[in-house]
Every structure is written in C-alpha cells, then in structure tokens.
C-alpha cells in the first residue's frame, strides 16, 4: 500500500497523505466523541433504568407485601382460635371484597389433622364480581401434593410459590403466598393458609414498564422461569437457562444466574429473541424471589449518538473530500513545473538535449508570464524551473562548443598524424645521414692512421737522414734518394690531407642536414605541445611525448654543434698539417733541387734537417689531435644514434597517441552529435 502510494506522482502522493492524515484526525474525533458520549449516555440510562425499575419493583413489592399480610393475619387467627366455618367464611369474603389484588384465599388443613366436622381445604376465589367457594379436598385435586401446600408445610415457613396454573382449583395462572399455621399446644403444623395473586395483574405492571421505543421489561421467577415477557411464548414455558441453551447463548445464561441469585446489574446483552444488542438492567424483587430485568435496545439508546456520529462522519468526509480535491488542485498547480521539469530532465538524462529543449519550449508556453521572471519569484519550484532552463541552455551551448573543439581537435589530430608520419620519414633520412657520418668518420680515421704512419715513417726518414748525415757524408748519394722518397711521402700526405678536408666538408654538410631535421623536429614538437594543450586532459600523454621530442631535438642540436666545432678543429688541424707538409714538401723539393749544389754544404742541410724534426713532432701532435677528434665524432655519433632510437620510439609513441587522440576525437564527436543533433 505504502509502496503504491510512494510510486504515485508527487501531487497525488501529497493529496493522499494529507487526505489520510485528515481521515485519521476524523476517525480520532469520531471515536473520542463516540466513546465519551456513549459513556455519558450509558451512565444516564443506567440511572434511568434503576429509577424506573426500582419504582415498579417497589410498587409490586408493596402490593405483594399487602397480600402477604392477609394469610399472615389469618395464620395468627387460626393458630390462636378454633376454626369457625361461618365466621371464617364471612371474614374471607370480606377480605376479598376489600382487597381486589387478592385472587383467592384458602385455608388448607393437614389431612391428618382433619376433624370430621370441618372441611379439609375451604377455598374462596374471585370470578368476575362474585366470590366462589370450593373445597379443594377432592380426590382429583390432591391439594397436599401441590407446591403451594407441600413446600411451606415441609419447610414450615411462609413462601411465595412459583407461578402455576391452578388446574382444578382457581383455574387461573397465579402465584400463591402460603403461611403455615400451627397447633398452639403441640406446635405441629395444622395446615397452610394462602392468598393467591392473579399473575396477569403483576405481569401487566411489568409489561407496562416502557423505556425508549422498543425497550421492555421482563420478570423471571426464583428458578428462572419467565413470568412476564413481551414474547408470550416464553411465559411459563421457558426458563432463562432453557432459552439460553436453545439459543446457545452462554452470556444470557450467566446473566440469568446473576438474576436468579438476586443480584443487581447493568450489562450488555444480546437480546435472546431478536439477536440485537441490548443493555439489561436487572434488580431483584425480594419478596417473591423474582428478578425484574429491563431491556434497552442499544440502537435506540445510542440513536442520538449514532445520528451525531453520522453527522460528524458526513461533515468529516465531505470536508476531507473537499480538502482532498482542493489540495489536489493546489498541489497540481504548484507541482506542475516539477513534473514539467521531470519531463524535460528525462530527455536530458537520455542525452536528447534537443528534445529536452523542444519539451521545455512546449511546456513553457503553459507557464504564466507572471511566473516567468524568476528573480521576482520566491517560489522554489518556479526558481527550479528557470534554473533548469538555464541549465539546459548552458548545456546546449557547452555541447556546441565541445563539438567545435572536437572538430578542431580532430583536424589537429590529423595534422599531428601527418607530422608524425613526416617525422618518421625524416628520421629515416637522418638514419642514412648518420650512417654516412659514421662511414666518413671511419674513412677519416683510416686516413689519419695512414697519415700518422706516414708521419712516423717521415720522422724516421728525417731521423735516418740526420743519422746518415751524422754518420757521414759518404752515403750522400743515398741522400738524394731519401729526399726523393720524402718528396713522394709529403706529396702523399698532402693528397691525404686534402682528402680529409674534402671529407670534413661532407661531414659539415650532413651536420647541416641533421641540424635542419632537428630544427623541424623542434618545431613539430612545439606544435604538438600546443595541440596537446588544446586537447586538455586527452592530450596530456601526448604533451609528454612532445616535450620529450623537443628535448631530443635540443640534445641533437647540442651534439651537432659539438661535432661542428670538432670538425672545425679537424679542418684547422688538417689545414695546418697541409700547410706544414706543403711547406716541407716545397722545402724538400727546393732542398732536392739545391742538393746538388748544397751537397757540400751538408752541415747546413743537417742543421736544417735538425730544425725539421721538432716541426714533425708538432705535426704528429696535430695528427693525434685529429685522431682524437675523429674518435670524438664516433662517440658523438653513437649518442646521436641513441638519440635517434629514442626519437624513433617517441615517434612511434606519438603515432599511438595520435591514434588514441583520433579515437577520442571520434567518440567525442559521436557524443557531441548525440547531444546536438542539429
């Protein structure tokens, strides 16, 4: 139930809750009114019942007590005076005349106490206006066995009989008050004197008790036999106990027991015949041992209360219904924007922003102009409505911006992709250049080594020349050969040095190429960094790569600069070498040409030869520097190669990232397209 209510729309739910609470309050009012009024009514009716019943019972009691006095007086007379038929007859007739409430009077002698001259049981009873006499001592009547005689005789005390129909006697439905009279001398019971009361009269007193419309009174005897009841079929036929057994009404039987026991009480009861709810007030009528009960129908007793309650119910329900309708409309009006918001947001939640905007526009037409200015409204729901409007329009704007950014990102990603591809190609070129540099370096190395060998050999030759000169001038003829050899060697050195010069020029060219590549890499990395910045979070990885590339290109630059410097050094050294060798060559040629004429001046030559040796040492040093430089080129080339591998890796990463960016851009595009289908 509560789940069901909870799943209702807000306006209905609020209406239901308010209605339920109203109903609870209504029920509380209804019940409190009912119970309070009811207890007031019950107290009142109990009081009324008591008053009415007590009045009637007192009336009957005094009536019966008047009747009781007659046999009591007669008993006193009979106990104290001898029986005089005539006198007694007159007396009894007079009594009957004066006491219309007495139906009959009997003086019944104990059969064994009979004296022949006396009647057994003279009985005077009414018949309309006359008094009839009969002697009850007849075979078919057997008065000594009737309760009215036998019970007081055996109990030796006065009693009221149970109601009975006096067949063969008074021929009437009656109760009898029987008083034993005694033999003054022996104290033995001589007989019973009685006064009968017509039960009809007493029943009339009871049945005339009226309370409300259908309330009634009834009386039961000391053994529960119905004496008076509005259902005449019960009278003398049923007892409260047989009736409760027939109706299987244990409650009625319990009340019957209390009544028979002479208690007074006020109880709820189911009316045994009609089965309706009644209240019973019962009170004993002590003289005859009866109990009189008053039955009050609850529906009448509480009819005023029921009417009042019906009015309360009617007013309450009508009020609650009006309230419910009112609340429903007020809430519906108030919460209409909420359901509209919910409708609009449903589209937003489904990503259909355009439909959300359309829905908003459609619903917004229904909103009053006065409500449209949120700044003037203190109503949260109206504010909510406009905040939502702001939200969906902002969202829409944002999504359009995202879309254009996405488009830009898409083209950037394309550029990046192209750049990466280009970089890849460039790298291939660089690789080839690197290989060339290595190759040239090796060649320079070889040449330098050969040059060094030649220089050693030249030095050896110079030293040998010196030695030869020093050893003697005998072998002067060989000097010419040596000089020719020197001339040849220096020629070779010059040639080789020129070759070095040529090769270094090549290296410079390659370095320029690498430098250009690094320049371009640097530029690309700069662009990549800018694009990565634009792509925001998606470009973060990409930016890292770009930065790395930038760093690598910068490193490459530095290495190239170093190489350039070294090359310049090499070039300088070679140039010095060439100059020196050329100088030596020309001088050796000049010496050769002059050998003939200067052969004599051997000591001068020897001196000059001695001057040459330190210059060769300088050359050897220059060669060593050149060799070291070449080695340095190799190691720098290795660094360049390592950097190239890193660059290759970075390019591969760049390609991956570019691909990821492409994918991201693609899905972003899809999402944005979903949001903005226009």
């Amino acid at each position, binding site marked *: 139930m509560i789940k069901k209510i909870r799943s209702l729309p807000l306006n209905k739910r609020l209406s239901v809750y308010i209605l339920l609470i109203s109903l609870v309050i209504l029920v509380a009012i209804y019940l409190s009114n009912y119970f309070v009024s009811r207890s007031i009514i019950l107290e009142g009716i109990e009081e009324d019942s008591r008053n009415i019943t007590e009045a009637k019972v007192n009336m009957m009691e005094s009536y019966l007590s008047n009747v009781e006095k007659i046999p009591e007086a007669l008993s006193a007379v009979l106990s104290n005076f001898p029986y005089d038929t005539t006198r007694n007859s007159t007396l009894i007739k007079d009594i009957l005349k004066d006491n219309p409430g007495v139906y009959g009077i009997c003086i019944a002698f104990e059969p064994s106490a009979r004296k022949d001259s006396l009647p057994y049981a003279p009985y005077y009873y009414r018949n309309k206006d006359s008094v009839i006499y009969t002697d009850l001592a007849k075979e078919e009547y057997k008065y000594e*066995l009737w*309760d009215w005689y*036998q019970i007081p005789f055996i*109990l030796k005390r006065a009693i009221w009989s149970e109601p009975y129909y006096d067949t063969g006697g008074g021929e009437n439905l009656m109760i009898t008050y029987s008083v034993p009279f005694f033999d003054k001398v022996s104290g033995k019971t001589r007989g019973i004197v009685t006064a009968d009361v017509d039960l009809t009269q007493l029943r009339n007193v009871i049945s005339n008790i009226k309370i409300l419309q259908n309330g009634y009174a009834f009386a039961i005897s000391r*053994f529960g*036999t119905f004496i008076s009841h509005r259902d005449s*079929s019960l009278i003398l036929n049923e007892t409260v*106990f047989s009736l409760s057994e*027939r109706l299987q009404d244990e409650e009625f039987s319990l009340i019957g027991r209390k009544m028979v026991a002479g208690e007074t009480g006020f109880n709820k009861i189911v009316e045994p015949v009609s089965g309706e709810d009644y209240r019973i007030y019962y009170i004993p009528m002590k003289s005859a041992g009866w109990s009189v009960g008053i039955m009050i129908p609850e529906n009448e007793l509480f009819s005023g209360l029921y009417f009042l309650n019906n009015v309360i119910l009617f007013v309450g329900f009508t009020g609650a219904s009006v309230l419910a309708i009112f609340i429903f409309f007020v809430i519906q009006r108030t919460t209409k924007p909420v359901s509209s918001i919910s409708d609009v947001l449903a589209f937003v939640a489904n990503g259909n922003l355009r439909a959300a905007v359309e829905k908003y526009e459609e619903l917004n037409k229904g909103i009053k102009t006065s409500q449209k200015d949120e700044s003037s409204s203190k109503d949260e729901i109206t504010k909510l409505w406009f905040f939502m409007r702001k939200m969906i329009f902002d969202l829409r704007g944002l999504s359009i911006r995202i879309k254009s950014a996405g488009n830009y990102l898409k083209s950037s990603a394309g550029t990046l992709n192209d750049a990466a591809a280009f970089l890849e190609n460039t790298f291939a070129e660089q690789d080839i250049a690197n290989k060339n540099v290595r190759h040239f370096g090796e060649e320079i190395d070889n040449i330098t080594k050969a040059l060094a060998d030649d220089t050693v050999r030249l030095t050896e030759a110079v030293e040998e020349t010196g030695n030869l000169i020093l050893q003697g001038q005998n072998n002067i003829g060989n000097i010419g050969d040596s000089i020719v050899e020197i001339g040849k060697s220096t020629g070779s050195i010059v040639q080789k040095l020129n070759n070095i010069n040529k090769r270094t020029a090549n290296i410079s060219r390659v370095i320029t190429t690498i430098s250009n590549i690094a320049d371009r890499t640097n530029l690309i990395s700069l662009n990549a960094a800018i694009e990565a910045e634009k792509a925001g979070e998606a470009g973060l990885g990409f930016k890292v790569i770009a930065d790395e590339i930038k760093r690598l290109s910068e490193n490459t630059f530095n290495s190239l600069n170093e190489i350039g410097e070294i090359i310049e050094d090499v070039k300088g050294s070679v140039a010095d070498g060439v100059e020196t060798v050329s100088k030596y060559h020309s001088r050796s040629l000049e010496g050769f040409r002059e050998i003939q004429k200067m052969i004599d001046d051997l000591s001068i030559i020897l001196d000059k030869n001695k001057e040459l040796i330190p210059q060769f040492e300088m050359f050897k040093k220059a060669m060593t520097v050149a060799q070291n430089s070449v080695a340095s080129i190799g190691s720098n080339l290795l660094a360049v190669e390592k950097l190239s591998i890193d660059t290759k890796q970075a390019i591969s990463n760049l390609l991956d990232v570019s691909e990821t960016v492409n994918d991201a851009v693609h899905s972003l595009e899809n999402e944005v397209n979903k949001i903005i289908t226009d």
Partner: protein
Amino acid sequence: MRYFSPNRLKIFLLFFVTGIFALLPMQSNSSLRKIILAVHWQPQAQFAGYYVAITKGIYKKYGLDVTIRHTGFKDNAIDYLKAGGANFITNFLSGALEDYDHGFKYRLIGQISKKSALTIAGLKSRGIKQLNDLNNKKIAIWQAGFRELPQAFLTKYNLNSKFVPVRSTVNLFLMGGVDAQVVMDYNELNSIIFSGISEDDLTLFRIANYGLNVPEDGIYCTDEFLRDNKEVCKNFLLASMEGWIEAFRNKEETVNECMKLKRKAGLSANYAHQMRMLNTMEDIISPVNDTIDPVLDKRSFAIAIQVLKDAKRIKGDINYDSFFKEVRK
C-alpha cells in the same frame, strides 16, 4: 396394424385406465388399516419416534393409518387397551408386568427402551456426594408411582431413606424441602438443570448403572389382537422403529414436531427441554447402525420380576415367552 385398430385401442385404453383406478385406492387412507396407539404420557419427545412415523408417512408405507392418543394425569393408556380404545399402547415394563400379573394378559411385541432412565439426583451443595449420603434422607418421588425400582435400589444398598411423594414439579427439591429427587433422565433432570442448577452441581445415581436396569418403554397389544393381526403387529413394530431412527436422524425437525404437539395440547413447550429429552431417548433406545433391537433382554426381565416380587407388586413368576412375543418373523 390390424390388431391395433382404433376400436381395439379404445378397449385396451379402457382396461388400462380401469386398472390404474383399481390400484389407486390401495394408496389412499381408506385402504389403510386404522390403528390407535395410546401412549402413556402427554405429548413429548419420549414418543417422538411414533410422531415421526406418522409425519414421514412410515406407517402408511406399512399399510397403517395410525392415530396417537396421549394419556396422563386423568387417564391411563392401559385402560384404553382394555376397553378396546387402542390397538397398541406404550407402557413401562414394570407397570406392564404388574398388570400382567394382575390378570391382564397383554403382550409385549417390542421393547423399544433398552435402559432405565430412572435416576436419583442430589445436590452436592447439600452434602449428597456418594451413595451413603442418601441414607436417612428425604427423597422426592412421583406420587403417581414408579417407586419399585428406586425402592429396590435403596434396599439393595441398605439405604434407609424416606420417599416424599410430590406431584410433578422439582420445586420442593430446589427449595430444599427434600435432599434428593427421583427423576427421569429425560424429564425432571432437565427441569432441574433449566432451573439454573448445573449438572456439575448434581450427584446423579443412575439406577441402571447399579445392577437394576429395568428398561421402560415398550409396545404392547392384547393377546387376541396379536393372534388375529400378526402382520399388522409386525408392520406396526417395524414402522415404529423406523420412525425412531428417522426421529434421531433429524432432531431439529423432530423436536419442532414435538413442540407443535405440545402447544396443540395446551402444554408448556420448551424446545431445549424436548431436545434434551430426544437425546436421552436416543441413549435409552441405543440404536446400532440405524437398527433397534426390539427383543426384551431376558436378564432385564428377570431383574424386573425380582424387583416387583420383592416390592410385592407381583405375586409370582411370569413366563418370558408368554409375555414377550417376537412378531418380526
């Protein structure tokens, strides 16, 4: 077709219709044997089986048109039988044996009751809790009779109690004029209970449980009637027993019929009382599998003879076979 010419068909139909009409009177009352049953008390559930046998057409089914005559304070069923005012009567076994001994040779054709309903009821609150408590106490009993069996009970248990004859009410007992009262389970006991005395407040001495089970109600007819109308006797007995079974089958309906008869007779009618009476009758008649055994138990017969002899109600022995006649064969 020639055998069923219109003329022949007419003749055939004439015979057919005549035949039908000839059969009809067999079903009408005029062809039924008129029977009067005098029961030994006023209308009440004690005779419910006979009422139901009439209302349900069981007697008619057996070819009998039965009228019930109730007796009571002023008349006696046996007198009707003697005078020819009844074909069958119901009677107590003990009463019937006395009459038989006194020379009225009538026959028991069905011992319907199997158990004595005689009970001595005493109030626990007045000190009657066991057998000996009855000693030297006053016990109310019907002035009309049925005293032999309670007397035999007192004698058997050496109880020196005094019987106080009462007319018909239990008021003397209820008002403490006597200490106990002889009651019929199906009648006065209910009166006591319906006066607000619960059964738990009472000590009940059921005489049948003290070795003195002399069953009560049986169906009797004169020797001559039985001799001349064996088939009628048989049919009457079978129909009556069927009536009883039917009476127990639908008790509400049965009790309503009893109430109707009581009201018609101007008697006090009490539904609950009649229902209790019918239930007690079922216990007394004790049908087994919807069958009542109508044979007089020889042991019960012997006890009855002994009790009556002891009470000097009968002079000598009575022959079982001449008293009880099995008419079903």
